[in-house]
């Protein structure tokens, strides 16, 4: 009895199975890098990671989450290396011995962006705290609300302004990454706090302008750490260490400084590993 449909289906399935075996067979050493959405959304890691993979033959799995989640992954040994920007939160993990070999990699700064006509008069503030007070009084604010480094920075700014963010009537949390949050702020004609790099890389598609910048409290510092193998035996320390050495090496530091500078006319990140 001829059953052409069955034979054809069987052949298709056999091919699928063979292909999948091939796909899963290639195992090369890999590490998990838990990092922030800002390094991912700006495209910086897309530019750096392939260089490292090519030079060292180590695959890097970049998991872009908030800094809080990245640190928790390190704390449970679910990541090998973290690139994060919330020094306060990082310190706890260094003290507990989960993170070692910390190195300063780079910085940029946070800016408060909002509708170009600045309805809340944020730009008139003398400090970041003034700006937050103006937003609380007259503006709408969209928060990351995702326990990220940017979210931590925002909460610190509310603290400096002595305002309880929960009491700000027109403040909403997106629970999403920086790019998505900027889009939402744009659509709702709201203010938000963003790292300069992500803002610059999305600026052409947003109707948002910088409303406040320049306060030293808005400095945004990125550190890289390896997860301590003595505490989490399943982690890959030597490969993580190689990635750290790569990030702080002179050619890569230089590449960070010029990353997309030709596109935006200014640097998205400023390398720090060699200067101090």
């Amino acid at each position, binding site marked *: 009895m001829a*059953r052409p*449909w069955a034979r054809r289906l069987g052949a298709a399935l056999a091919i699928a199975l063979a292909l999948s075996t091939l796909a*899963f067979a290639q195992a090369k050493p890999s590490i998990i890098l838990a990092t922030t959405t800002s390094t991912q*959304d700006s495209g910086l890691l897309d530019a750096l990671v392939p260089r490292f993979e090519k030079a060292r033959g180590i695959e890097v799995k970049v*998991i872009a989450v908030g800094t809080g989640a990245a640190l928790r992954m390190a704390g449970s040994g679910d990541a090998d290396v973290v690139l994060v920007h919330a020094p306060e939160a990082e310190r706890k993990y260094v003290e507990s011995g989960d993170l070692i070999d910390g190195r300063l990699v780079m910085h940029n700064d946070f800016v408060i962006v909002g509708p170009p006509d600045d309805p809340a008069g944020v730009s008139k503030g003398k400090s970041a705290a003034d700006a937050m007070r103006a937003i609380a009084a007259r503006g709408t604010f969209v928060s990351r609300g995702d326990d990220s480094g940017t979210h931590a920075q925002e909460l610190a700014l509310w603290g400096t302004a002595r305002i309880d963010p929960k009491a700000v009537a027109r403040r909403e949390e997106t629970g999403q990454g920086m*790019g998505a949050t900027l*889009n939402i702020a744009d659509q709702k004609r709201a203010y938000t706090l963003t790292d300069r790099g992500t803002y610059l890389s*999305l600026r052409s598609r947003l109707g948002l302008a910088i409303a406040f910048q320049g306060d030293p409290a808005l400095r945004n510092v990125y550190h890289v750490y390896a997860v301590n193998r003595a505490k989490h035996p*399943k982690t890959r320390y030597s490969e993580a260490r190689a990635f750290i050495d790569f990030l702080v090496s002179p050619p890569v530091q230089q590449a960070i400084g010029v990353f997309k500078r030709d596109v935006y006319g200014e640097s998205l990140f400023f390398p720090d590993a060699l200067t101090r």
Partner: protein
Amino acid sequence: MTAIVLRTLLVSGLATLLAVLVGVPAGYLIARRSFRGRTLLLGVVNTGMGMPPVVVGLIVWVMLVRSGPFGDLGLIYTQAAMVVAQFLIATPIIIGFTAASIQALSPRLPDLLTVLGAGRVRTLWLLAREARLGLLVAVMAAFGAIVSEVGASMIVGGNLERSTRVLTTAIVTETSRGEIERALLLGLVLLALSFVVNLTLTVVQQRSRP
């Protein structure tokens, strides 16, 4: 783009295949055998047909993450982890549709086939042939569900650009980056892919109509 399309087909195709291998026999047994708790089991399966993929993804993540019970397998953030999650989403769908389509056949058909001299294996095969309209619906529903699913793939695959980014997670990434044209294009490709697969299965289903 091509890589993402092939990867999407590979992961969801393999998960569907595995779900068929497990789900069709299971659905057959549930439909044909009577045992204690059968209705309860069918209720569980039918609930599973509507199981939120993101919950499945979360459970698989907890199981496969390095500090989890199966962490030593090193499967988290791989295509294999995505296949596991999608398999778990697809299997109840296959079981449910299979059970329904087998039950739609005359309950005396197996005896009849045996009387006509068909062996055990042959009987099963002929039954599957009789039920194939429903079985192919099962395959299409399962593949359609997992190829369009985003939550579980994002959580267990990690949306890695060169290994685990599939069409749905790529759409999320491009949208979040504000690359709306690219996101829309990927959406069209996903629709086209779904259409081609379903059309192929429909041709198979209709060509050998009894």
